[in-house]
């Protein structure tokens, strides 16, 4: 796993009457589909992570899987293996079809 440029696949905007409008590019984790907010002007190499305890956004260097060649979130990066979300969906659906076929 390492850092690299990542594709932008989403856009988020927060409109607050008392503050300037905040716009963010987002990308999604290639392993779990978590929406990742990206710091502007960093070629998406810096993630914006929300710190619940401090209620602030923090900047972190992003992560990239060189097996599936996609940006990933830190939780998936920590797992150290590549399991793209498409495979997870197919596994879930296959289990469901099996359960149906045996009447469970």
């Amino acid at each position, binding site marked *: 796993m390492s850092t690299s440029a990542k594709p932008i*696949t989403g*856009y988020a*905007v927060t*409109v607050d009457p008392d503050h300037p409008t905040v716009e963010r590019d*987002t990308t999604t984790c290639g392993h779990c589909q*978590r*929406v990742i907010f990206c710091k502007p002007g960093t070629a998406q190499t810096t993630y914006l992570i*929300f710190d619940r305890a401090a209620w602030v956004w923090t900047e972190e260097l992003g992560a990239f899987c060189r097996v599936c060649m996609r940006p990933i979130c830190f939780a998936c990066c920590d797992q150290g293996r590549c399991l793209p979300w498409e495979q997870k969906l197919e596994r879930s*659906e296959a289990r469901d079809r099996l359960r149906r076929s045996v009447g469970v």
Partner: protein
Amino acid sequence: MNLSVKLRRTASAALSLGGINADATRPRRIEWYDVILGCEAPAADNPFLYIFQRYTAAGTATAVAPQKLDPADAVTECDAAENHTVDPTYTANEIVLEIPLNQRATFRWLAVEGGRLISPATASNGIGISTPTSAALAITATAHVNER
């Protein structure tokens, strides 16, 4: 087909705002591509944290009929519900979107193909919205999803 779902409740830190999931007998994949979040109460300063998380069982809630964006589309199969009294069975750590928001603010997220949130065509599997940090005020989520 593209669908619009409006979810609403008096926010609760313990119970979910709502969710959209695959039908239990005729499951289809659901793609979330547009989400709008906001609070209906008069302007005031209260923090809200919206958590979008995958679940495997729908819980108990008030059913909501997804609205077809193209009236010519066939009948939808997916199920939507709001104002949970029993929370869905959330999958630990499967949080797909986390939004901190002031009560005064409105949030919108859109995704292109390849960046949408997809829940599997698995019975009763879906994505729910909870508000672990919230004030007891009416909140609304409008979601546009594609069922396929």
